[in-house]
């Protein structure tokens, strides 16, 4: 282990005081005032989402700004955006585990939780977006009296399976990695409710060598399974667009382009949560500036891939020689949605260049701002892909614009509230830093010191 890695851990951190600090956060320390304020705001936004859903179910999708050239509006934009955010959680928990990166230890827990709740938000929209949401189960291959299977050639069916599998997988991975920590909480809880609650969730974990051996093996298997998920889920969602022949959707570059965009927004969100949570719960010595530095590098790397994809997309449109493909681009730069395109370029291409500087990457507030602009930029990217491609395609007679209505925005902001609410509850009920991963890191560092 190089000295650089050692800076991930504060001096004098032992198994005992780390475990006490993290478990006390859950079991004994009262919630900080910032937590309560955030909880109230997020609950109100969630309430707004529930109201929107009730209005949607009673009035139908007409309350959204959908119309016929632009039949996919904000709900699809939000789905792609949320599922993208989820991806960094999976990458951190799986790929960084397999590649044995020590800096994942203190951020993997809330990254996984973020992934879990982002998928919940992502999975909600396709169902809300259905004209008859109560019939969503038609996507399942079940023995129905219509004797019909889902249309296996439709990417919407692939999408359904991809999101469902991703949700199940992420829940499993999150729960697996929580098991040893739940047992710790069970042993340290002083109240009956906590003891029994955590005991039931811990599934009888006693921390025996057999348990740990099995745990390690299961985690590795799950991580190996998860690695392809990182590329396939958003890849499949991008096929919803690129399998169609709509100019602006129909690009072979879409799957890798969407995956890079997903990881870009995902790492931005992890950085955002890292900055917020560490200052909220006083964990600056565990989630260090070095962690932010690594996250910043990841953001920069995937941001550059996204910028490259933009150039390739434009090149493909020009090189295709097709009037309609070229027009989509001219329309993106000058048409009714041009502000979205240029803001996206500022957020995703221009501002990201600040991450070349080490001082920016290690500066909490700067990272917070860049995380926000990157997420905004990625949202705008999905917005302009979904909207500009369909609003003016092959039939000029059908051209029309779609402006999101107040309900579109309520559904979007509401999902932010739902995400925040779930995350806030999670960090109060579960340890927001993986105690067993941190203990392993401390042990490795100590071995290193003894050897050297």
């Amino acid at each position, binding site marked *: 282990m190089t000295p650089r890695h050692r800076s991930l851990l504060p001096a004098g951190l032992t198994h005992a005081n780390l475990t006490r600090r993290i478990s006390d956060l859950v079991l004994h320390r009262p919630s900080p005032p910032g937590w309560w304020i955030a909880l109230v705001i997020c609950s109100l936004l969630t309430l707004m989402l529930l109201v929107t859903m009730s209005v949607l179910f009673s009035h139908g999708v007409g309350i959204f700004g959908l119309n016929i050239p632009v039949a996919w509006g904000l709900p699809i934009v939000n789905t792609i955006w949320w599922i993208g955010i989820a991806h960094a959680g999976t990458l951190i928990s799986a790929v960084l585990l397999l590649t044995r990166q020590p800096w994942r230890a203190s951020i993997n827990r809330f990254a996984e939780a973020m992934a879990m709740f982002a998928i919940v938000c992502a999975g909600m929209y396709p169902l809300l977006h259905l004209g008859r949401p109560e019939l969503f189960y038609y996507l399942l291959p079940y*023995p*129905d*009296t*219509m*004797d*019909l299977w889902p249309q296996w050639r439709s990417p919407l069916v692939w999408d359904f399976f991809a999101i469902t599998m991703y949700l199940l997988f992420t829940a499993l991975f999150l729960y697996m990695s929580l098991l040893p920590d739940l047992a710790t909480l*069970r*042993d340290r809880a002083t109240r009956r409710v906590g*003891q*029994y609650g955590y*005991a039931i969730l811990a*599934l*009888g974990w006693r921390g025996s060598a057999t348990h740990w051996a099995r745990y390690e093996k299961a985690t590795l298997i799950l991580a190996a399974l998860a690695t392809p998920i990182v590329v396939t889920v958003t890849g499949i969602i991008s096929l919803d667009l690129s399998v169609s022949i709509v100019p602006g959707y129909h690009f072979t570059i879409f799957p890798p382009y969407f995956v890079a965009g997903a990881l870009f927004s995902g790492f931005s969100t992890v950085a955002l949560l890292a900055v917020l949570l560490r200052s909220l719960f006083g964990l600056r010595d565990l989630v260090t500036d070095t962690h932010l530095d690594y996250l910043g590098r990841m953001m920069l790397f995937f941001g550059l891939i996204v910028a490259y994809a933009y150039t390739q997309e434009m090149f493909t449109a020009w090189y295709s020689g097709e009037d309609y493909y070229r027009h989509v681009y001219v329309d993106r730069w000058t048409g009714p949605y041009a502000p979205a395109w240029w803001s996206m370029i500022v957020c995703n291409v221009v501002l990201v260049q600040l991450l070349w500087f080490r001082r920016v990457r290690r500066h909490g507030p700067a990272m917070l701002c860049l995380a926000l602009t990157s997420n905004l930029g990625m949202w705008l990217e999905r917005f302009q892909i979904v909207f500009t491609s369909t609003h003016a395609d092959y039939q000029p007679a059908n051209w029309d614009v779609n402006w999101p209505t107040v309900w579109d925005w309520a559904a979007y902001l509401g999902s932010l509230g739902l995400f925040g609410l779930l995350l806030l509850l999670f960090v109060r009920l579960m340890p927001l830093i993986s105690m067993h991963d941190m203990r392993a890191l401390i042990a490795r560092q100590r071995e290193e010191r003894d050897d050297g």
Partner: protein
Amino acid sequence: MAPLFRRRANSLAVVILVGILALLMAISVFAYVVYRSPYQTDVGYAPAQPVPFSHQHHVGGLGLDCRYCHSGAETSDVAGLPPTLTCMTCHSQEWLNAEMLSPVRQSLANRTPLRWTRVHDLPDYTYFSHRAHVNNGVGCESCHGRVDRMPMTFQAKPLTMQWCLDCHRNPSPHLRPPEKITAMGYSPRRDGIAGERLIKRYRIHPDTLLECATCHR
């Protein structure tokens, strides 16, 4: 520290896990059975009618042809219900004072049609043409069952999409020659001409039977 749970809890955990699985399977099986049961499909549905008309008596007993009353079957999408005058071809001579038939006589006197209750009710998003079926070898019995044995008319078949597709996917075993369309108790498989020959004679192209727009227009 005393253990939180007693030994029993281990078995309880297993029971709960197995119970959840069993419950899910039970719900699936229950849903499967209910969705195919007469409760859902209305097989056997025999609503009360203004006149207790017996197909058993008129078809099985007297041997009336279906088309005598349902005259639109060959020429129209709907087979149609007979006007009261059709009833009166016989009932102006027969059973003149029968109490059972008083709604028919009133209908004639007041010139208001009888209001029968529909037995075979397809969803509004399906398009079914009697003409297309009757002129292409599908017998009345195939969808309506043995009406010659129905004292009160009831729904004999489930009318689910699966049931429609059973025949649309493989029509030949169900086809009859033109003279047997209205015959009751005729088995296309056993009694008649081979389906492969009929499918050629009627010039049926099975592929077109499976287009969505064949039934959903």
